[in-house]
C-alpha cells in the first residue's frame, strides 16, 4: 500500500538574481513498511528533498513545483496549522547531528514528553511516563533514571536513540532519517540501524533513508534512488540496482568505493567536481564527468525512464526497456 507519493518535486534557491534548483523534478513512492534509500553526495539535493517533504525549507529556498501525497492527502494544499498537526503522526524526521538537535537545557524526558503532549493531548504525568516507556523501547537501559539526564550526559549514539524515541512518539506513517548514523562510530551505527529496522517492522513505518553509504542502503533498503545535481538519475529495487547499476554515475560510485576484503591497486575515482547548482551544464548534469558521454548528452536533460522492468535510469546511453524487451 502506497503511503507517500512524491511527484515532480522541485525546490529552488535564489542568490544574487540567480536561481538554483536544488531539487528538480523528483518523483518516488513509498509503501508501508518499506525503506527507500536516497543516495547521493553532498549538495546533490537529498536533504533538501527531505525538508521539502516536511515543508520545512527555509527562505531563500522555496518549493516551486510538485505534489506530495501522504495517504492520499496533498501536503502542499494544507494550511501551516494543519501541516503542523501532521508532523509527528504523519511525517517525522531524525537528523545527522543528534547532539545539536536536542535542547541542551532540558531533560531528555521532558523533551520527549513535550512531543507526546503536543500531539497526544495527555497530561504531564502521563506524557512523562510515556517518555520513559519510549526510552525503553529505543533500547536505553534504566529509562526511568536516564529520562532525568541532560543531552550532554549522553553519548552520540544515546542522543540518536532519544531523537528516534521522539520521532516515533506519535507513531508516524513515514519516518525520514537524514544520515542518521553518519556522525556515529561504526559499532554504534550498527546498533542504531538494527534499532530502526526493529521499530519499522513493529510499527509498519515507511522509511526514507537518506545516506551517502551504499553499504547502509544494501543492508536496510528495499528500493534505492540515486541522486545527482538535484535529480534522481537511477531508481529501482535494491537487488536490481546493486546487481546491475545502469547509470554511469551509479556505476562510478560503486567503483570508487573501497570495499572490505576487495583490495585493489587503485580506486576508480570520478574525475572533476560536482557541478555548481547555479551553473549546471546543459543537458545531462553528469556529462562532463561521464566516461560514456556523447555530443547528444548536451542537448536535453535525459528523462528518468524504465530501462528494465522495475528499474529506471536517466541516461540516453542506456537502451530503453521498450526497445530492448527482456
Amino acid at each position, binding site marked *: 500500500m502506497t503511503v507517500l507519493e512524491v511527484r515532480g518535486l522541485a525546490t529552488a534557491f535564489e542568490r544574487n538574481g540567480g536561481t538554483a534548483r536544488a531539487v528538480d523534478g523528483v518523483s518516488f513512492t513509498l509503501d508501508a513498511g518499506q525503506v527507500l534509500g536516497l543516495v547521493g*553526495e*553532498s549538495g546533490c539535493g537529498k536533504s533538501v528533498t527531505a525538508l521539502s517533504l516536511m515543508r520545512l525549507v527555509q527562505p531563500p529556498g522555496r518549493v516551486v513545483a510538485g505534489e506530495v501525497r501522504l495517504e492520499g492527502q496533498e501536503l502542499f494544499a494544507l494550511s501551516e496549522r494543519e501541516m503542523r498537526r501532521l508532523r509527528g503522526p504523519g511525517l517525522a524526521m531524525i537528523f545527522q547531528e543528534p547532539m545539536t538537535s536536542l535542547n541542551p537545557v532540558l531533560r531528555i524526558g521532558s523533551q520527549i514528553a513535550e512531543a507526546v503532549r503536543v500531539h497526544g493531548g495527555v497530561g504531564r504525568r502521563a506524557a512523562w511516563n510515556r517518555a520513559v516507556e519510549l526510552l525503553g523501547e529505543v533500547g536505553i*537501559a534504566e529509562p526511568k533514571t536516564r529520562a532525568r539526564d541532560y543531552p550532554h550526559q549522553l*553519548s*552520540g*549514539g*544515546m542522543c540518536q536513540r532519544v531523537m528516534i524515541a521522539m520521532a516515533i512518539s506519535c507513531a508516524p506513517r513515514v519516518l525520514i532519517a537524514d544520515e542518521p548514523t553518519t556522525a556515529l*562510530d*561504526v*559499532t*554504534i*551505527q*550498527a*546498533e542504531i*540501524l*538494527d534499532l530502526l529496522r526493529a521499530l519499522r517492522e513493529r510499527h509498519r513505518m515507511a522509511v526514507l533513508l537518506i545516506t*551517502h*553509504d*551504499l*553499504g*547502509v*542502503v*544494501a*543492508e536496510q*533498503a528495499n528500493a534505492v534512488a540515486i541522486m545527482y545535481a538535484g535529480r534522481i538519475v537511477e531508481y529501482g529495487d*535494491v*537487488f536490481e540496482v*546493486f546487481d546491475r547499476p545502469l547509470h554511469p554515475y551509479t556505476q*562510478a*560510485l*560503486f567503483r*570508487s*568505493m*573501497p*570495499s*572490505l*576484503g576487495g*583490495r*585493489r591497486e*587503485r*580506486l*576508480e*575515482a*570520478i*574525475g572533476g*567536481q*560536482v557541478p555548481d547548482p547555479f551553473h549546471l551544464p546543459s543537458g545531462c548534469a553528469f556529462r562532463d564527468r561521464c566516461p560514456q558521454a556523447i555530443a547528444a548528452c548536451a542537448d536535453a536533460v535525459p528523462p528518468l525512464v524504465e530501462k528494465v522492468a522495475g528499474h529506471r535510469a536517466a541516461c540516453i546511453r542506456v537502451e530503453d526497456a521498450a526497445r530492448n524487451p527482456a
Partner: protein
Amino acid sequence: MSATTPLVEVENLRKHYPIGGGLFGRARAWVRAVDGVSFAIQAGETLGLVGESGCGKTTLGRLMLRLIEPSGGDIRFEGRSLLGLRPRELRGLRRRMQIIFQDPYGSLNPRMRVGSIIGEGLAIHRLGGRDERHQRVQELIDLVGLPPDAARRYPHEFSGGQRQRVGIARALAVEPRFVVADEAVSALDVSIQAQIINLLQELRERLGLTMLFIAHDLRVVEHVSHRVAIMYLGHIVEMGPSEEIYRNPRHPYTRALLSAVPIPDPRRAARRTALAGDVPSPVNPPSGCTFHPRCPSAEAVCRSMRPPLETGRRDHAVACHVFPAEKP
C-alpha cells in the same frame, strides 16, 4: 621485522590529561588518552591506525610529531629520541615530519592565498630564495593536481576535495620523510575520497613516504595500509600485516568492528557481533582488559588482568586472554 632501524618508533608512549582542579588546583582525575603504546614503522611503510572516537588515535598521531608533549615513554625518529632534543633541533627535524588534517575547511587560514599556505613551511625553514620557493609552490600545485592559477586564489574558492589537495601540498612542501594523515579523507564524499586516496598512494610511492594513516573507516584503511593497528581506550589491542588482520582478526573488538561495516551487497545478510553498550569513559577505564564489559567472550581473568600485546605467527600481535596470538 627487518634488522634495519625503523624510521619511526614509539615505546611505551603515554599521554594522561588532568581533569578538574582549575588553573592551580590539583587534578581530580586523569584521562588516559594514550596509555602505553609501542610500535615501529619501517621506512616506506604505511601503518593504518583504526579506532572509534575517543580511543586516542589522534592524540597518538600528534604525540609522534611531538605536537603535544607525552607524559611518558619515548619517540624515536631515525633512531634519535625526539624528547631529548633542544627546540632548535626539534624545529630542524620537524621538516622531516608533517601532518595532514581531517578538516579541509578548518585547517587552512582563510586570509592567506593558497600559494602562501603551501609555501609557508618553505619560508619558515628558509628553504631556497624567493624565486625558488615560488617555483617549488608551482611544482607542488601541479603535483597534487590543483589548477595552475591556484596559488593566487583563496581557500574559500575551492571545494572540500581541492582544499585537501592544498593541505597535502603544504605537508609535502618541505619534503618530509614521515607524514601523519589524520582522518585525511574522512570528510570527503566517496567519489572525491577516491581521488585523494589515489593521490596519496601515488605520492607515497613517488616520494618514498612513510605514513601513519589514522582513520575510523576500516575499508579505507585496508585499502591504503601495509600494516594495521587497532586501538581501544588508549591501548593497541591488535596489530599486524593488513591482509592478516582483515582475513584473520583475533581480538573480539577487531571482529566486532569488522562485522559492523555495512557491505554494499543486499544479498549478504548482516552477521554482526553485537557489542553491549558504549565505549567506557577513559577517565575511569574498566579493570583488567578495558574491553571486557562489552566483550561477548570475556572470562573471569579478563576482569582482573590486562592482557599484554604479544606477537605471534605472521607478525600478528594480539592483546587478549581468550584469543591470544598464535604461537610462532
